[in-house]
């Protein structure tokens, strides 16, 4: 069967099947991974690219990983451009933002070409956060890094499996560079299993419907994606919108967004030079942030593909914080990506209040705790993003205790599993009762969580933003509350911080994570009286404070 079928039903069937394949890849990886950041937190993504590396379909996971895989595959294709460079059964990997890796070295992208009819018809790929890829600090992430070389092993878009057989020396190099070699090996194999599942499914599809039809239909979906985006774009207010905002570290970030009938331009050129600590991102990274906000504004309900993002025009300046040059460190790239995402949101919110609520806690609040498990004697490493409060909209209160906009189908770690696996205690995990986010509609609540350490000489690394400037309110609603860690040592005074690297921990030290409440919307005096009574009844606010903030009952 070589003729191209233009039958719309076949088209629909192939598209559904691509979606199903991406979901299947996701499930396989989740079930086989060894890092809790992958199997529990689901800090990973899966996707299917066409032969040129354009994103055709994406699986569940986190929105910030949707637009990563295509960029990685394109770099692999460009690098392996000679006949025989790419063969059936090959599997490739990259983790380096200067080689298509987009994010940071912990995130390994694994990609596999799909062959049918003697040629490459597609790529299956995934990305996941690995617990330790070497570098100067356990967990590989540290605020102390001044060059990417200190952040772990770099895989510059390389082949790891040749014609179905693992390239042993390469696998050994990857393994030996990790402080958690067995875990890294297990996770890389989980990723390989996942791309193989996708490969098998796509070959079946191409065989059934014909290679030409399969390829033709992939192009058609992306055209549909573009059509959907353009249609939605036409409904957005037109013009140029500008916002500058001071960050916790004193830098001023600026964004200018120009919305036209067929183009969504994000101009980030007027921003500081890249830093010599790991608070930079690659240009690809901010592109992902732009894609996320664009997709949410235009067509949030249908699956994203390369076509959906075509109307985006991104302007950056090489050498700036948003377009870092090798060898700038990029470990905390995700906070920078989030800052861009958040200022774009804030920039547009006043102009489209029905689409955009008040600000949320807007930080991954990445928390890295490690040490020796007192019961097993084995090393453990916790890598956890935290839950926080979301902003209120014109129609309702914000959600409490959700992952930030960067994450999506991401799950927190149950206390019971944390205690068993990591050998520490979780003394409490509750909603944050600090003031903040009051309004006609209130911001959702952040959380307060106490980790109590059970062995000496462990470490703590965190990098939270929105700690000095909390989530922003709208229409007269109050700002939210800050993200921070209160470290309560067994001996000595508590200290509060948002960024720290490799702090040594001891038995009975308590690491209290506090995440912010979201921004409020509207004048608190206009809050519905029943809602205020419920707030008091539920212990979210005292009666006295409620009278002060919301007015007499």
């Amino acid at each position, binding site marked *: 069967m070589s003729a191209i079928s233009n039958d*719309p*039903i076949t*088209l*629909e*069937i192939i598209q*559904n099947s691509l979606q199903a394949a991406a979901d*299947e890849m996701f499930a*396989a990886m*989740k*079930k*086989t*991974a*060894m*890092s809790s950041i992958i*199997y529990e937190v*689901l800090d990973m993504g899966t996707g299917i690219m066409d032969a040129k590396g354009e994103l055709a379909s994406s699986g*569940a996971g*986190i*929105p910030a990983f949707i637009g990563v895989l295509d960029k990685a595959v394109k770099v692999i294709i460009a690098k392996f451009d000679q006949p025989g460079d790419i063969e059936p059964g090959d599997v490739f990997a990259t983790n380096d933002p200067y080689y298509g890796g987009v994010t940071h070295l912990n995130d390994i992208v694994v990609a596999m070409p799909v062959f049918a009819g003697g040629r490459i018809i597609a790529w299956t790929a995934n990305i996941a956060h690995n617990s330790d890829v070497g570098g100067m600090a356990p967990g590989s992430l540290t605020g102390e890094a001044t060059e990417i070389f200190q952040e772990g092993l770099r895989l510059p878009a390389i082949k790891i499996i040749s014609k179905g057989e693992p390239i042993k020396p390469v696998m050994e190099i990857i393994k030996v560079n990790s402080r958690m070699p*067995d*875990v890294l*090996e*297990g996770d890389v*194999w989980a990723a*390989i*299993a996942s791309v193989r*599942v996708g490969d098998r499914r796509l070959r079946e599809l191409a065989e059934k419907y014909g290679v030409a039809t399969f390829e033709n239909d992939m192009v058609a979906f992306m055209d549909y994606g573009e059509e*959907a985006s353009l*249609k939605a774009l036409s409904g957005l207010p037109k013009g140029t919108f500008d916002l500058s905002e001071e960050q916790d570290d004193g830098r001023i970030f600026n964004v200018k967004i120009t919305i036209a009938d067929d183009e969504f331009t994000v101009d980030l050129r007027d921003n500081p030079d890249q830093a010599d600590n790991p608070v930079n991102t690659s240009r690809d990274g901010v592109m992902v942030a732009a894609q996320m906000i664009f997709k*949410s504004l235009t067509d*949030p*309900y249908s699956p*994203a593909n390369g076509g959906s993002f075509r109307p985006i025009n991104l302007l950056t300046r090489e050498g700036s914080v948003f377009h870092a040059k090798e060898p700038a460190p990029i470990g905390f790239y995700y906070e920078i990506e989030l800052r861009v995402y958040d200022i774009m949101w804030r920039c547009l919110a006043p102009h489209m209040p029905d*689409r*955009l609520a008040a600000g949320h806690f807007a930080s991954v609040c990445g928390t890295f705790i490690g040490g020796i498990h007192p019961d097993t004697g084995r090393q453990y490493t916790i890598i956890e993003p935290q*839950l926080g409060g979301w902003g209120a909209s014109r129609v309702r209160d914000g*959600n*409490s*205790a*959700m*992952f930030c906009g960067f*994450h*999506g*189908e*991401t*799950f*927190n770690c*149950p*206390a*019971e*599993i944390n205690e*068993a696996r990591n050998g520490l205690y979780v003394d*409490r*995990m*509750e*909603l944050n009762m600090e003031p903040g986010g009051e309004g006609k509609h209130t911001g959702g609540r952040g*959380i307060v969580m106490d980790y109590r350490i059970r062995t000496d000489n462990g470490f703590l690394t965190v990098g939270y933003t929105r700690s000095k400037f909390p989530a922003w309110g709208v229409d007269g609603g109050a700002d939210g509350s800050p993200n921070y860690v209160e470290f309560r040592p067994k001996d000595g005074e508590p200290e509060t911080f948002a960024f720290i690297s490799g702090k040594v921990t001891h038995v009975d030290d308590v690491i209290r994570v506090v995440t912010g409440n979201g921004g409020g919307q509207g004048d608190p005096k206009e809050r519905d009286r029943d809602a205020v009574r*419920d707030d008091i009844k*539920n212990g*979210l606010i005292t009666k006295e404070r409620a009278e002060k903030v919301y007015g007499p009952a």
Partner: protein
Amino acid sequence: MAGKTIRVATDVGGTFTDLVCFETDPDNGRSTVVTAKSDTTPPDFERGVLNVLEKGGVDPATVDFLAHGTTVVINALTERKGGTVGLITTQGFRDTLEIARGNRPDFFNLHYQKPKPFVPRYLRRELPGRMSYRGEEMAPLDLSPLADILDDFRSEGVEAIAICFLHSYANPSHEQATLARVRELWPEASVVSSHQITREWREYERTNTAVLSAYVQPTAERYLRRLNDGLKAKGFTGSPYIMQSNCGVDSLESVARIPITMVESGPASGFWGAAELGRLIGEPNVLALDIGGTTAKCSLIENGQVRIMTDYWIERDRTSAGYPIMVPVVDLVEIGNGGGSIAWVDDFGKLHVGPQSAGALPGPAAYGKGGTEATTTDANLWLGRINRDYFCGGEIDADMAAAETAIKNVGEKLGVDADEAARGIIRIANNNMVNALKLVSLNRGFDPRDFVLVAFGGGGAMHAMALAAELGVKKVVVPAGAPVFSAWGMMMSDLRRDYFVTRLVDLQKGSEATIEQTFADTEAVARQQFGDEGVEPERVKFVRFGKFRYQNQEHTTEVLLDGAVTAENLAKIEADFHDTYEREYTYRLDAPVEMVGIHLIASAEIGKLTMSEEPRGEADPAPALKGKRAVDYALEGIHEADIYDGTKLKPGMVLNGPAIVEDPGMTVVLHPGNRAELDGYGNIHIDMAN
């Protein structure tokens, strides 16, 4: 009547209450079957059950075995018609229920609404006391605040209390103490603690399970009590068995304590029926497909075993995180694709079918009850697959004008004529179902070509052959009585309980004693529970599974364990794990293996139906032939098909496609090349090979 054994299954659905009654003559094993249907009668559901018994002419006094399935629990949950619940939990964790897991499946949607907890914050209260994950007491339980908490609950109108403490899966003593004290202080309240339902870890899931169980408990207790009283008043002398989500039945008393286990009792009985049918006809590997009015459900049965899991969620989909219920539920995939599913065209000219359904009212356009949207059933009518002159067994005059208008509307949006639109609807619906079947087979490392497709429910036989062809399945079986197959499954069920216990052990020399002890302890609990219900210990059968993984992994692979766990067979257990793992995930690791817990199935037969086989007669189906008509097979074109009267088919008859079998409750669509033969039980075996 004397000497006959009478078995009855009643099934309370959202719209109708169904009855199937088998009267078996012990002399020759022959059974006569009576079916009846009456309206479901909320909120006094037991009335519908008594009505349907009367309508079917069944005298409860003569019934030997009565099994009962119900959607009361799932309906109470989805319609939010349960009781007011108060939660008692560990200090520092009252917000667990609201924090949940923080996930946002609909991740580009910035207006996502987090599912609201079933217990508001002011009814979530804490007690001091703490266990470790190893079950050691770290801080003693302090019950002194309990009396005040219960006073508050009373004044707030709480009807049921859920108790869930951290690590109670490892040591339930704090929960037990609290439970006992609550019963003492407030004997009238319904109360349940998490360890009574599950012994697995993950505090949000376990807390929510306890809460939802408490939520449905007052409703379910009342329902079960009235059912029991109603049956007794009509002279029924036995005790009814209640269908469970794990494919077994359980005693009414036991279910009344933990009613949440009924949550998926409807689908479970059908899948159990498919497993039993497989045993009867010598096909242990079955893909079971149940197509009803609004959904299609499927499940995979390997080697006669249904797969039971505890990772079950309600209201979870691409747009909502849903709510977990950690009880043993048959592993099933359900999609919004049934006979009443609506076909629609999106803004970009793409055709979709479901998940919206036209339901019973207005129903498909062809019902002529005001439905204007084309459904799968309308497309099947339009293409001649369903007989327009024998619609719903002749009970409804098909409104073909309405069907035509509805289908043409779809066609116009697609730029095609009605025929092409109807074919498209069937193909999309079939594709949705194929993807669901792949999720339970290929997705889990099973090749559908190694399985027989058993298709039931009102719509199963209409689509099964097309799905089988797509999946490469070689044989389809449409069971006798396919439209009421779930009720049959209920009568084939054993008294069954699934025990899941979390117990982390490295799989290495010396661990056999711990593993064997875990099984032995759990088996003792099971024997005790069965014994309390008058089942002698020797009648209880056990099947053991271990849940294994590579060290550092989280998710486990279940492996069947044969016999006692000894030092000698540890190596075989480990090898079985590696094999099972590699089949599912394409690789194996040279890494240490851990056992995370056990899954024990305890069951006892309680006098289930024995089927008798009739001799096969003539192969010639001419006596059942009604005529011929043109049938559109979508991709295979239009063919002149033989039309058979399903009620006149006899064992041994052979039918060749293209053909249609018309039965009052269903239509069997045989494609060109299909060869069908009736076995001695009246099941239709369709050979896909030619």
